[in-house]
């Protein structure tokens, strides 16, 4: 077991200090919590009830609750940033304790997907950078073990700044091996991604029978996704009040039991449903959109899934140059070349999923995930099946 993991486990194991209150923290207004920024844990008062994530933090299983949670988290972080609220107030110290304005109760969720873990890590990193201070964990010893394990594997604590950067880039846990998040601004880190993905493929199939072309196709798709982010995600006019981190996050998980490889790319940029309507489009795209868009949406972002679907089918170009703007269709093509696999694109409040059989389905909710996430689930064995959820 890694030293960093042991250190984290000790932090989670409980320390001597004030006795815990018996009333669940989620039921109380001002209450005592244990916070940790990487040094010694300390006790603090939380000034309000914590935000509760959904029981399953998974974009496909609980999209409504999951999207809403990320929007709530982002809104709270944004409000704190605008009010110049500090993450930990050590000056007030009622009864000798510091205070924190609020937090998320991670004892509640029992599952977090790789995709949701990447978004969560990026939001915590954003919060740390916006405040110039490490975002503390709260009551880490109560966090659900599976959720903690996934976040540890993916490098959450390093990204937030709580623990130093690890040298091991992949971590095993039972039947899964995870490549920790690579934060990057462009395609310069493709070699590191390649090494990580080869490592995951060897884990799934130690006999080394994963065909090279599958990895090359995947890297090609990633290169397209990265070019999409650098070309479209953070345009000059996109200047949100709550500053985004001008980069993208890449992570991957291999599942030996299901013989699947999941790769995730996420950015906090302007999103497809915002950029796509601004593009000059071809007639067939206009026809598709005229038929599919709801003239009077019943809720915010209701048309977002349709815009993503159009972008996946037809592409587009904000730059109005015909040789550009084929990013998403190219990614779809790469995935279809790779054999059986699922491609999901989530952007603002919408999503579009291309299943193994090539069929597209799309939808939307009234909350935003705050960026664009592309997820591939590749089947590394013809016999395995990628479940829809």
């Amino acid at each position, binding site marked *: 077991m890694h030293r960093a993991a042991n250190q984290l486990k000790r932090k989670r194991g409980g320390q001597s200090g004030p006795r815990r209150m018996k009333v669940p923290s989620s039921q109380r207004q001002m209450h005592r919590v244990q916070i940790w920024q990487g040094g010694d844990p300390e006790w603090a008062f939380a000034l309000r009830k914590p935000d509760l994530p959904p029981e399953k933090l998974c974009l496909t299983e609980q999209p409504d609750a999951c999207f809403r949670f990320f929007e709530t988290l982002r809104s709270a972080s944004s409000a704190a940033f605008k009010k110049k609220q500090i993450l930990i107030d050590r000056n007030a110290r009622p009864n000798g304790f510091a205070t924190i304005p609020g937090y998320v109760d991670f004892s509640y969720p029992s599952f977090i997907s790789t995709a949701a873990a990447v978004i969560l890590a990026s939001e915590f990193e954003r919060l740390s950078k916006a405040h110039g201070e490490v975002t503390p964990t709260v009551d880490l010893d109560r966090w659900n073990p599976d959720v903690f394990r996934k976040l540890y594997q993916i490098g959450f604590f390093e990204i937030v700044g709580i623990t130093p950067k690890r040298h091991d880039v992949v971590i095993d846990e039972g039947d899964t091996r995870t490549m920790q998040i690579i934060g990057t601004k*462009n*395609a310069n880190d493709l070699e590191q991604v*390649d090494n990580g993905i080869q490592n995951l493929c060897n884990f799934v199939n130690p006999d080394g029978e994963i065909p090279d072309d599958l990895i090359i196709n995947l890297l090609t798709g990633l*290169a397209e996704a*990265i*070019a999409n982010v650098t070309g479209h995600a953070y345009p000059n006019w996109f200047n949100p009040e709550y500053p985004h981190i001008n980069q993208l996050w890449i992570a991957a998980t291999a599942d030996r039991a299901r013989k699947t490889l999941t790769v995730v790319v996420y950015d906090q940029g302007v999103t497809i449903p915002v950029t796509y309507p601004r593009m000059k489009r071809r007639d067939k795209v206009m026809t598709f959109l005229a038929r599919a868009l709801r003239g009077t949406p019943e809720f915010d972002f209701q048309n977002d899934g349709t815009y993503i679907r159009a972008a996946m089918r037809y592409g587009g170009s904000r730059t109005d140059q015909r040789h550009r703007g084929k*990013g998403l269709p190219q990614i779809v093509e790469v995935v279809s070349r790779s054999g059986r696999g699922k491609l999901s694109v989530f952007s603002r409040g919408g999503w579009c999923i291309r299943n193994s059989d090539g069929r597209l389905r799309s939808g939307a909710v009234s909350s935003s995930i705050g960026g664009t996430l592309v997820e591939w689930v590749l089947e590394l064995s013809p016999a395995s099946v990628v479940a829809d959820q």
Partner: protein
Amino acid sequence: MIIDVAKDFSRYPAGRVPEDGDNNGTRFREHILVPALKDAQRNHTTVVVDIDGVRSFGSSFLEEAFAGLIRLGKFNRNDVKKLLEVRCTKPHLFIFRDAITSYINAAKTDEQLLAH
């Protein structure tokens, strides 16, 4: 002249412009491909681009590097076809070799695009 993309440029060519990364299509075209093609044109030889060692090859890179020769008026299509040969022995990379050919065949100059 032979350009081994993996050895002479990168195993991970990706993206179109410098913002996309160091190994972008513009850099490959301007620093490697155009000088080699000009040299070949002067000396009545050809340029062989060997893609066997690459590990990624996005369409944005391929379009910018190869179709960009014609789109930006560096060479006309016939010259590119005469001077350039793409070498590839690995079957799983044939798709990229064919993509280069189709990008060259479909490339239009900016003037042609405007007229269209």
